[in-house]
């Protein structure tokens, strides 16, 4: 499901060719009949895509919350990237990053 969502993200990116500055992209709506979940996409300036899959059984997350979560995610990601020992593409082992992510998730749920 993540891959299909990625395809949709690519679709969106190619669509908004001009407005490359538009960082935020809330994509809502991949609600499969069986699994109701929401997928949010977020693209950075360097074309790094964040995909967030949320279970819809949650009380609907507000738009702002999603945005803030993505922003935090983005910040943490840049911090991870600062590490010269980190190869882009590897699995992120950063503790700070993990803790930030988990805290975010706990906050939400």
């Amino acid at each position, binding site marked *: 499901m993540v891959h299909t969502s990625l395809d949709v993200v690519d679709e969106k990116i190619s669509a908004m060719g001009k407005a490359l500055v538009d960082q935020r992209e809330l994509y809502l709506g991949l609600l499969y009949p069986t699994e109701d979940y929401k997928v949010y996409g977020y693209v950075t300036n360097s074309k790094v895509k964040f995909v967030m899959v949320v279970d819809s059984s949650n009380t609907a997350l507000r738009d702002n919350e999603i945005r803030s979560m993505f922003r935090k995610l983005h910040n943490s990601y840049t911090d991870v990237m*600062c590490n*010269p*020992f980190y190869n882009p593409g590897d699995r992120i082992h950063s*503790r700070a990053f993990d*803790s*930030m992510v988990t*805290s975010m998730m*706990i*906050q939400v749920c």
Partner: protein
Amino acid sequence: MEAAAGGGCGSGPPLLLSEGEQQCYSELFARCVGAAGGGPGSGPPEAARTVPGTVTAAAGPVADLFRASQLPAETLHQITELCGAKRVGYFGPTQFYIALKLIAAAQSGLPVRIESIKCELPLPRFMMSKTDAEIRFGNPAELHGTKVQIPYLITEKNTFKRMDDEDKQETQSPTMSPLASPPSSPPHYQRVPLSHGYSKLRSSTEQMHPAPYEARQPLVQPEGPSSGAPGAKPPRHKASLIRSFSVEREPHDNSSNYPDEPWRITEEQREYYVNQFRSLQPDPSSFISGSVAKNFFTKSKLSIPELSYIWELSDADCDGALTLPEFCAAFHLIVARKNGYPLPEGLPPTLQPEYLQAAFPKPKRECTLFDSYSESMPANQQPRDLNRMEKLSIKDTADFPVPTQDVTSDDKQEQNKTRLALKSTADEALPKDMSEDPATSKDSNSLKARPRSRSYSSTSIEEAMKRGEDPPTPPPRPQKTHSRASSLDLNKVFQPSVPATKSGLLPPPPALPPRPCPSQISHHNVNSERSAHPKPPTQLPNYGDFRLQKQSEQVSEAEIHPQLNRAPSQVAESSPTKKDIPHSQPPSKPIRRKFRPENSATESQEPPSTVGGPVSAASGKPHAAVQKQSSKQKKAIQTAIRKNKEANAVLARLNSELQQQLKEVHQERIALENQLEQLRPVTVL
């Protein structure tokens, strides 16, 4: 104290505390505040950063308390955020109470949210070390299970503030691994962390954190004691043990604010790190870029994930570059890791950049001085560091073979310059302790006026520094005091002597002295021949010239002095252009002249006959005039003699030291050759 059975639900104010809770919290709060005020004053200034005028608990004790609650780091961060301490920047009573409530909630397994604290909650549980309160409360608590223990406020002040500042940096010791919050049952929870924490604590006594002292906390149920009783036994047992243990720790803690010895950077280590930093990046106040640092740290042969982890810890501002304190911290972590210390969960307090910058202003100062410094400084440090490296408690500095070789090669280069070599050997002779640092800084202070034009340094760093210094220095050159002498010995030697004199007594490069010597000697010979038939009248004016010259021009003479002293002080005097010669000549000539007036008749005296001859010829007229002059000159000459002797001594010492170094180098060479020979047959086969 009753349990929190009557804890109010979320009605009315967001936080309603039961009586028990109220009491506990206020006690805890008072402790935190009290400890903040009475905490060690020698700690870093940011320690008790409380807003004036309000009753706030300092971050340090609060952090300790929170950590003692055995909650994972992210939970604690959440709690801090929620309770508003981050927002307001300090822990006021309300924030503190909210935080305590949240801790209790987290410990009960509830998610950390404002809503959680609206329900009934047990009192938060804290694993703490001993205090008087514990002695008071511990046993009763175990029996009654109602008292809350007051944490022992270890003086780690900056930790919590940094927890706010830095991204989830956790200063827990590795032994206290974050335990999962939701316990199945409170006693079980408490027993598990206690045994776990305590056993690990036993094994790693160097860790900085408070000896865990399990405090029995009241439980939800009114029949707390009963359920607490089974759990009370291990705590009670361990409590006594821990009490004894923490007694030992107390004096230790009182002595040092940061009892985390493995993470404390010693001066020697710091010197080394700073040098490595400079080797990577000449400007000590700027950054080392990520790629450069990566290459450097990769040489340490640690695994990439570990290096990544260390980077994560040490790059506090996450900018992809390391400043000097960050670099020192990273280096220290690497060194520690290579020695087998487990990496901490978070940057220890002594490795925090602020602490490193605050506690070690000297390296920064040395860095700035280094800029204005000159050759001898790096040479000074390098051999000193090399020597220190051998003595470093951390033995794995050799893990950086390349850097050490760089340092060694630099060192050898410096040693090629005699003056620097003198400094290095002098340093080796000096006691290798921190007294060298003040000495160095003293030297650097005095050395700022040194003429850079005479520096012999060959490293790019020094050249860069020198260039910055070159423009202002030429003027001071004539006044070169022995401040130029990088060695303290020379300083001591020359301080008693007339200050305004030859700085050039500093060991000139070995090449230099011999060069003028033969020429001078030859010139001397020439002059002596010439002076065999001097014009007597010219001697007088020459005297004046000598005197003037001696006083005005003191640079190169000093260099020539030794040679001149060694060379038979030929007579002649030469044209005024020969400043050096005249300088030596006055010593000889006035003496002769002195003798002459006394024994005008005895020309066959000691003074070189060549002088005696011409001198006697002029004995008549100039006699009277010369006498007056000679008395004046006598003193001047005596001082000159003294100086010459001192110069002699210095140079002789230099000579011996150089020879010593030469021998050492020879020995090293022999050793290396031996090694080579040993290896060769192996490889050939």
